[in-house]
Structures are given as structure tokens and as C-alpha cells.
């Protein structure tokens, strides 16, 4: 026992157990659950994707749906870039300028999560339809023609995706900005001429892990979403998710649908593992 305490003091993050099976006993039920219902299904997905047709499932599904697949990644990319551009200044403001309002503003960022996803996406329909408030304002500003539409356009789907995933960008950036040592920033003016240089040379590099984490956390769910495209778009806005949603009950198409989600999984897995390798897993949660 005493030995355990001594080890703990050295390693700082946990002690070497006197009985090595203790941690495994604690881990087992959860690990078992994750193995059976998370890891094995991914293998099953791979297996199903090769049923009736083998690798041709992959080539077929990509050939027949290249437009939808391409659109999905373009949407997700635009959403991610916009989220950085919009979210970074806000995260910066909350971290550096908000003072005692910091917790309140942070709570504000999380607030949309407290409204059911489908309901808050439906709210966009109220805002965007032809006779709705947004169209009215845009027409008043001369930005939208009398017959112009917002619903059933790329802009509507991208805007709603951005809305739904923006907090995933803001929070990690905030966390990494908040960790920046303020003494560094105080010392910076002595080294650099102006605030802009301080930001570029000190703050921005230190917050990059947050930007990367936020980008993954925004890009990934945007890739897999079908709710925004279904509720606010037409068939010209369909994404990979809509394809799978439409066909998931058809057993004959299951191998092809598995193929497409398997590829999606591998791409994202690679991205996440590279990230974890370089920057650790802390900020992804």
C-alpha cells in the first residue's frame, strides 16, 4: 500500500496498482460494451460492404453517387472554414475580453444544444421560407429578387449545418485560448511592435490545437448529417446521409450503403488518429 502511494507521487497521474487486475476489472464492463457495440459493428460494416459483389460495391457506389459524395465533402469543408472564421473571433472575445461575463457567454454558446436538434433545425424553415423574416429582410436590402428563394438552396443547408455545429468549433478554440499563459501576452509587447504581431506570433500558434480539434469536431458530424439537407433542401442538396437514410431498410442495397459509410469511417479514423498522434486526445472530447 505504502509503495503505491510512493509510485503515485512520482508518476503524478495514477498509481501502479498492487493488484494489476484491479483496473481491468473496473474497465471490463465498459470495454466489453464498446467492443461488442462499437468495434465489432465497424468490422461487420466492412464485412457487409463486401457482400454480393465484393470490391465492385465500392466502385459502383462511388460511380453512381459521385455528385452526392462530392457535395457532402464540399458542404462539410465550407461549413468548417466558415465555422473557424466566425467562431475564432467569438472564442477570442470570450477568452480575452469577456471578463466576469465569461461563464455566461460560454453558457450562451452551449444554449442551442438544449433545444432538440430536429426542432431547432425546423425553426430555420420558419426563418427561411419565401414569406418568412429572412427573405423579407434580404428583399428589403435588395439582396434577393422577388421570386428568389432561400429554402431548397445550398445556402440554406450550409447555413443550418453551420448553425448546428458552430459550438463544436467555438468550445475547443476557447479552451486552447484560455490556456494561453497571460504572462506571455503581457511580455509580448516588449518583443513585438504591435498587437497584431503579438496575435500572429504568440496567440494564434498556441491556439492551433483548438482550431484543429474544432475543425475535426465540425467537419465530421457535418459529413454524416442528413437532417439539414432533408428539412431545408431539395434533392439538389442531398448528402451521403440522405442516400443512406433513404436506403437503409433495403436489404439489397445494404452492401453498397455499407461500402460508402465504411469509406467515410476510414477517412475520419485516419484523420482522428493523425490528430491524436500529434496533439493527444484531450481536446477532442
Amino acid at each position, binding site marked *: 500500500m505504502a509503495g503505491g502511494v510512493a509510485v503515485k507521487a512520482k508518476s503524478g497521474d495514477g498509481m501502479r496498482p498492487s493488484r494489476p487486475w484491479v483496473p481491468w476489472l473496473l474497465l471490463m464492463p465498459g470495454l466489453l460494451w464498446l467492443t461488442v457495440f462499437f468495434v*465489432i459493428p465497424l468490422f*461487420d460494416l466492412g464485412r457487409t460492404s463486401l457482400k454480393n459483389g465484393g470490391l465492385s460495391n465500392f466502385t459502383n457506389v462511388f460511380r453512381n453517387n459521385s455528385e452526392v459524395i462530392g457535395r457532402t465533402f464540399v458542404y462539410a469543408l465550407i461549413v468548417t472554414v466558415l465555422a473557424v472564421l466566425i467562431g475564432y473571433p467569438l472564442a477570442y472575445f470570450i477568452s480575452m475580453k469577456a471578463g466576469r461575463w465569461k461563464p455566461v457567454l460560454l453558457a450562451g454558446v452551449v444554449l442551442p444544444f438544449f*433545444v432538440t436538434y430536429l426542432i431547432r433545425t425546423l425553426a430555420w424553415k420558419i426563418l427561411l421560407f419565401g414569406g418568412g423574416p429572412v427573405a423579407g429582410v434580404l428583399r428589403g436590402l435588395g439582396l434577393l429578387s422577388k421570386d428568389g428563394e432561400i429554402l431548397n438552396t445550398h445556402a440554406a443547408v450550409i447555413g443550418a449545418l453551420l448553425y448546428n455545429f458552430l459550438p463544436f468549433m467555438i468550445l475547443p478554440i476557447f479552451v486552447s485560448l484560455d490556456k494561453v499563459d497571460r504572462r506571455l501576452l503581457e511580455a509580448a509587447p516588449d518583443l513585438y511592435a504591435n498587437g497584431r504581431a503579438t496575435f500572429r506570433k504568440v496567440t494564434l500558434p498556441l491556439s492551433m490545437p483548438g482550431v484543429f480539434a474544432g475543425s475535426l469536431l465540425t467537419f465530421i458530424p457535418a*459529413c454524416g448529417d442528413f437532417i439539414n439537407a432533408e428539412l431545408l433542401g431539395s434533392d439538389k442538396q442531398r448528402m451521403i446521409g440522405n442516400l443512406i437514410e433513404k436506403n437503409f431498410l433495403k436489404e439489397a442495397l445494404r452492401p453498397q450503403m*455499407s461500402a460508402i459509410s465504411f469509406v467515410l469511417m476510414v477517412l*475520419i479514423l485516419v484523420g482522428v488518429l493523425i490528430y491524436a498522434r500529434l496533439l493527444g486526445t484531450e481536446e477532442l472530447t
Partner: protein
Amino acid sequence: MKKRSTFLGVWSAVVFAYMFTPILIVVLFSFNGSKTAAGAWSQGRYNYQWDKFSLDPWLNWNQYPDLTRAFVRSILIALVVVAISVVLGTMMSLALVKYDFKAKGIVNTLLVLPLTMPELVLGFSLLTLFASANIERGFVTIIIAHVMFCVSYITTTVKARIRGFDWGLEEAAADLGATPRRTFTRVTLPLIAPGIAAAALLTFALSLDDFIITYFNAGRVETFPVRIWNVRRSSIPPQLNVFGTLILLVCVALAVGGLFFQRRKLAALRI
């Protein structure tokens, strides 16, 4: 310097307006009364256009029993999910924080992966498993699916909260002759309880709100979001917004309450 602050302030205000407008709309449209008489076709069909302010949707919150039933069902599912995943997740986070052992990195990665996979992949792959194992989808499969991603959330949240605790207290208790069980209930649990409570709250909200994973594995069981999805083309009544607003209010109340409780506890500790 000053100019930059002003710009940041205005920018933040605009972004917050973007984030809050739909929430306002959700709440506002829970008070959308219909100009047409009861029983008219337009009643409860598409709650997209403002008619007039009315308390009717709140007073007749149970006008669409299928929706109410789905809502209650979702809450029951969330409670079961929280119960299971809190136990599993807390055990895992204790193991990960208190002990050093090989393969810790792998376990950590395994825990993060479900959180980074698109729900589409999680839901659909679980569906392929249930389909190839010939398992009927329904209540049980929904709970299985929810616990799968909630365990990860709980473990990572609790882990973050209890890191840096002085586990020496446990040994002290043991040295003083406390049984392991007593040590756990009197020392360990009080230490980790606030972290667990926060994680449980988060999990409850996640389970209640989950749609994509649930949808693929629900069979014919309709949770609240699945019900909304299934009737999205024919029934979007203001009562939907009533339930949405209720969830919002409860979450805000719990979050504020939690914050307040923590403040008081901290204040007490300082004395």
C-alpha cells in the same frame, strides 16, 4: 487596440444573434395559436407561419397523444441509459485516473473514437450488426446504442473532473480500519459525485436529443425525435415547440442550479 475590441464585441453580438434567433423562434412558435376553428385542416399541420399569440398549445399540451407518448418514452429511455452508463463510465474513469497500467493509451483512444465518428457511421454499423445477427430492433437496441456513445462521454467527463484528486485519502481511510465498501461510500463517492452528476446531466440530454443513431436502430419504437422525423411532412404542431421549450427550460434550470450549488459549496470550503 480599442478598435479591435469594438470589432470583436460587435462580431460576437452578431454571432450570438445567429445562435439565439432559432431558439427564440422555437419558444415563440410554441405560442402560435390558429386563426382557424378547432378541427380545421390547418390546425397542427404546419406550424411555420405565425397566426396569433395564444396560450392554447400550452394549455392543450396533450392534444397529440402520440407525440406526448413519444416524449415520455424518450425520457424513460434516457433515464435507463443514464443509469447504465454512469455505472460503467465511472468505473472506467476511476481505473484510468487512479491507476497506471499498460495499454492505457489504447483504452483512451478507444473511448474517444465513438465521440469522433459521425453518428451516421455509428448508427448504420450497429444496424448492420443487428441485421446480420437477426436481432429485432426496438427498445433494447435503442438503449444499447445510447449507452455505447454515452459511456464514452461519461468516462471522459468524469475523468477530467476527478483528475488530480488526492487518492491518498482512500488509503488513509483504509489504514484507519474502514472496510473497502465504507471507504467507497464515505470517501470515494463524495469526491467523485459532483463530476458524475454533471456527466449524468450531459448524458441525459444527449440521449433525449439523439436522432440519427436512434433512427437506424429503433425499429418501430418512436422516441421523441424519431416521432418528429416520421411525421415531419404531415404534423408539425405548436405542441412540438411546447415540448422543445420545456426541455430547454429544464436544462437551463439544471445548469443554473448546478452552477449555484457548486458556487455555494466552494464558498463553504473556503471558510
